[in-house]
């Protein structure tokens, strides 16, 4: 067995099986380095445990109602959300995007009026009124 630092830590935590503990104890007996390491770990743990416990002042951590978080995962949920987002983007774009080249009533009046002015009947009897004015 080489120098098993992980096993020493687990040994101090009581996490080794009996057979593992026996092997480690045998090793520690013949290995000065690992024995020293074990001693050092024990001192640190004792020092930490001897630190005083401080109470946090009231108000630093706000009280919160317990929230029940379901552990079940809805596999289709994210696909639905993504589809909804895409649909919303398309709908908004369709509303916001101006239609290219769309004719206005003024442009139509203009073209109709220009051509009608070549007719023999053109005149006051066929006045094209400026749109939306005076009506």
């Amino acid at each position: 067995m080489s120098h098993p630092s992980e096993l020493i830590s687990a040994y101090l935590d009581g996490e080794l099986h009996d057979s593992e503990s026996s092997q480690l104890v045998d090793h520690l007996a013949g290995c000065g380095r690992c024995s020293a390491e074990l001693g050092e770990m024990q001192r640190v743990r004792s020092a930490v445990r001897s630190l005083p416990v401080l109470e946090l002042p009231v108000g630093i951590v706000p009280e919160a109602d317990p929230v029940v978080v379901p552990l079940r995962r809805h596999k289709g949920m994210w696909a639905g959300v993504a589809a909804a987002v895409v649909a919303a983007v398309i709908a908004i774009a369709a509303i916001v995007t101006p239609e290219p080249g769309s004719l206005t009533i003024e442009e139509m009046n203009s073209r109709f009026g220009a051509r009608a002015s070549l007719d023999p009947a053109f005149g006051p009897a066929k006045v094209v009124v400026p749109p939306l004015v005076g009506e």
Partner: protein
Amino acid sequence: MRRLIALVALLTVVPGGVAFGAELDELLSESQAASYSAEQIISCSTPDGERDALVRIEQVGDELRVTSSVSDDVEVISGSGEWTLTRGEEQVVHANVDSGEATAEDLYTVEELGAVEYLGRASMAYLLIREGEPRAELVIDEETGAVVEAVTLTIGNEVYCERRFVSLDTDPPEITEPTAAAGETPPTLIETSTLPEEVGGFELLDQYVDEDGVRFAYYSDGFFSFAVFETPTAVALPGAELVELASGPYSRIFTAGQVTYVWETLDYGVALVGDLPPDMHEAVLAEMPHPQDRGLFRRWWRALFG
């Protein structure tokens, strides 16, 4: 400034015939040569309600300047194939037809109703009859030749629109030529069309396509006329009424003396603009491409990509 548009009339699809009966042709030619200033009231009874306007007219030769008496900053100058709308100093929209003066076959006969006095002046009244039905009454000032009153009728002698001069000044006005729009791209003639060559007595006289792919077709029966637009995109018609006719649903707006219908087919946005009386609308629209519902996805697609 709005996009400026030029149109060039290039061809008559239907061979041009004799325009009018000699008498009406003569009367209208004289009217177009008149010079005067006048105020005109336009009052129309439409299926969507009354539409009225008060405009000031100045005519010199075949140039006609129309300004609103309510808002003086709006002005239209038209004649000789041009039409320009300005607001204040800004030219809002302009169209130009360089050539092509196709006229419709004569559908009208003229009946002289007799001498009348209009605005204290000697005038003559005439009745225009189309296929046996009175369609318009004209009162023409004898000195100037100006059409001082024009009443258009629906079938059954119901008044559609009355246009009456309420003042007439025979001093020749000055009309400033509108500034030609820069950067205009001439449209391209199209020789074939899915539109009918004749509908309800109206002949298809000219049709063009412009740089935006908008197709324009002009119909006339010799007195009334309308234009049909086919566009790659939808046509904007804010404030329109939705009407359901036998051929489908349409958006419609009446102004004083003019009607505009807008609808969509699977391939085009379509509009009809004209001065034809309401009783002719259904018959004409029935022969045009009918409204078709594109569905939500097609609308989105067209809104996004044209």
